[in-house]
């Protein structure tokens, strides 16, 4: 819905914001030997304040940074920039960012790059394989983190409440990737997915810097990052709990309007920083169907189709939610890739720090998207070939059985009706001898989906949650055998042409849950 009634923008602040958002200029491309850097104009030896890759496809990449440098250069190969190098003059974009778009690259090929005069061995990436094919190494390697933003969380009293925990999860992943990854040791991350709430407490630009750019620095320079909007990305909500006094509460924004963001330190409504930070495909140029908005989008990486939905803004308004659903149907109807993975912040099934059985009006309506996404979007996922759905929001790990048709509260779940069954007539677990098949042996249709809550990449909390949603599997590594893990961690997803394997990796680098879908 259009924003109604909360435009309290101080004029001078507003005008200064507008002044710096409309300064885009066109890219220009030159090609020359890298050793001629002395002739490169407007460069700086300084390391950019932030540097990350956007929209890696089989033919293109966007190098994005904040800093003095005015151009980026790129060459094929694994070593320093000694081969023939292409340089692109950056265009300036919102939020004081610079972007250099490189096109006509070669698929599934290693590149190195520099930004201004800053170069480092870590500045390298690999283009995506041709759409439809798995990469040369046989495997799309995906790292997924949810609710990871605690490196900047100083709420409510100004002290750090979860110091070092997001870093522990990162280290756990790196340890697993180096030592235990059964496929390829130290395999580079092809796709880096953020499930929302990645920069506590209000998703300010400064918090994105501390919680994301200063923490995942190396991965961000080597893999494209693909986010979704969580409730904390929208800052603080304006609430009037007693009816007498308006207060501002982090993560409690109920607006559907991205121009209506406010943070506790600056209550002037303005555009959500998320949209200034990320450059996401609106025109289908990385695969998928054009969405016309960065709030939700899709892309292809090799043989995997990814969709990022907006459960925080678009989902809160019926017209916008219907529009997003219509787009999703068009998008999935065009998709022919081996696997389809969907992300959005509010999980349809959870009994962690949030409860998917809450009434729409509970807790001020903050969690209403949980119910709307379950009722209106899970039927689309099941009908249109989605394999895996990831969300966060609850700060624990919960992973479902292979589900179909469960739209109601937890107590309406019936494993015989709503899940794939094993030979004993019980819900199949998804691992060992009970791995799933894309075309369900039970229904003979590709009509089932695994839903995962992965919201413990920065902290663990359960509040009143008991990790007992019956649609989720019992976790063998949980000391109480609950249907979830109250552990820090992240998800590693590997997709070959025949097998999709998702593992939950804790902060020690140990595999704590595995689910496999074959085709």
């Amino acid at each position: 819905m259009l924003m109604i009634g909360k435009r309290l923008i101080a004029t001078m602040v507003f005008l200064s914001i507008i002044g710096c958002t409309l300064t885009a200029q066109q890219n220009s491309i030159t090609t020359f030997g890298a050793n001629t850097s002395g002739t490169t104009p407007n460069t700086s030896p300084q390391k950019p304040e932030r540097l990350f890759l956007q929209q890696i496809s089989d033919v293109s990449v966007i190098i994005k940074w904040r800093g003095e440098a005015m151009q980026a250069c790129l060459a094929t190969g694994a070593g320093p920039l000694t081969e023939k190098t292409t340089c692109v003059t950056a265009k300036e974009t919102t939020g004081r960012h610079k972007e250099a778009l490189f096109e006509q690259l070669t698929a599934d090929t290693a590149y190195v790059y520099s930004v201004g005069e800053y170069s480092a061995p870590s500045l390298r990436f690999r283009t995506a394989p041709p759409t439809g094919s798995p990469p040369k190494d046989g495997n799309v390697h995906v790292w997924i983190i949810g609710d990871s933003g605690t490196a900047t969380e100083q709420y409510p009293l100004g002290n750090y409440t979860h110091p070092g925990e997001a870093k522990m999860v990162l280290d756990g992943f790196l340890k697993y990737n180096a030592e235990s990854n059964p496929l390829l040791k130290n395999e580079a991350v092809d796709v880096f997915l953020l499930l929302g709430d990645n920069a506590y407490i209000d998703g300010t630009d400064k918090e994105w810097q501390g919680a994301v750019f200063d923490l995942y620095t190396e991965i961000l320079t080597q893999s494209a990052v693909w986010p979704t909007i969580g409730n904390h990305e929208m800052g603080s909500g304006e609430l009037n709990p007693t009816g007498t006094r308006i207060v501002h509460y982090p993560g409690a924004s109920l607006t559907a309007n991205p121009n209506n963001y406010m943070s506790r330190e600056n209550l002037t409504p303005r555009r959500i920083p998320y949209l200034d930070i990320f450059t996401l495909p609106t025109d289908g140029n990385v695969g998928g169907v054009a969405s016309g908005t960065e709030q939700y989008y899709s892309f292809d990486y090799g043989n995997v189709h990814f969709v990022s939905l907006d459960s925080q803004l678009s989902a809160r308004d019926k017209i916008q939610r219907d529009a997003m659903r219509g787009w999703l149907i068009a998008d999935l109807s065009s998709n022919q890739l081996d696997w389809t993975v969907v992300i959005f912040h509010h999980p349809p099934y959870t009994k962690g720090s949030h409860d998917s059985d809450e009434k729409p009006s509970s807790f001020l309506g903050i969690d209403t998207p949980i119910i709307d996404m379950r009722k209106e979007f899970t039927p689309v996922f099941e009908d249109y070939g989605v394999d895996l759905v990831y969300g966060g929001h609850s700060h624990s790990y919960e992973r479902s059985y292979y589900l179909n048709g469960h739209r109601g509260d937890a107590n309406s779940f019936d494993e015989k009706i709503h899940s794939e069954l094993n030979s004993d007539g019980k819900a199949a677990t998804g691992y060992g001898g009970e791995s799933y098949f894309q075309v369900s042996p039970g229904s003979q249709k590709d009509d089932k989906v695994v839903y995962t809550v992965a919201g413990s990449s920065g902290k663990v909390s359960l509040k009143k949650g008991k990790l007992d949603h019956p649609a989720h599997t019992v976790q063998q590594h949980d000391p109480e055998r609950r249907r979830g893990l109250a552990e820090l961690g992240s998800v590693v997803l590997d997709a070959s042409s025949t097998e999709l394997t998702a593992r939950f990796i804790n902060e020690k680098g140990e595999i704590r849950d595995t689910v496999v879908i074959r085709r």
Partner: protein
Amino acid sequence: MSQPNIIRARISLAVISLLCCAGHAFSHPGDEHKLEQLNAVITQQPSLQSAYIQRAALYTRTGNYPLAEKDFEAAQTLGDLYLVSHELGAYYFKIKKYVAAVNQFTNYLEHYPNHYPTLEYRAEAYREIGKTQKSLEDFSHFLETSPYTNPGHYLTVAQIILSETDQGNSIDDAISIIDLGISRSGNSPQLQSFAVQLEISREFFDAALTRHESLRDITSASPRWHVEMAEILVTSKQWGKARDQLNQSAVKLADYKKTPAREKLLIHIEKLQRHISDKL
């Protein structure tokens, strides 16, 4: 409730829901910190108009209306009146004095005609007092000037036009809003398919076909896209062309990965084919 009222109520409800009812006590150190800063500024510079405006806005946001009013009054004596108008309009809007709000916003827009937050505010205030045409003019201007919009914004305004304005021109007006959205955010199925339905409803079948054709590449001419094209052709009684589209869809479906939706689509194709056979 009539259709316009339902939509109006729905939109208003979503707004009201922002501001309602719960027993939680929330802390808000940001507000207090900001207030302290502004108090200090005003102590040092007691005739600085902008500080009073900002403090009034903060009091408005935190629901301290008497203090807000006092600061607005002070600000009006310290400089040009129009500089106070946006925030004062926002204050009136908040306390539901919509006519007063419109007057303030109008005053502000005379000096800053493209200030999109004020435009959006005034559009909403006009709606509240039943001036739909004025409201739509402001919404359109807002959509043209706002640096960030998404397809949902245009669909919302198009729905308001269809439900609240005279039937005579409403489809024209709704389609021009959708086309504004397409020109600003690019062609997308959400916007174009909505326009297709509007063209069909007024029996502009060629326009509907052209619009749907524009989605061919965007959807990679999916089996579903062909069926949607066939449906427009069936509605316009172009039976032969419709059958061609259905055949193309069926051929593609045989190659595509099977999903329940595609199985249902095939059944739908067969039904449409039988319907066409009866007509030919």
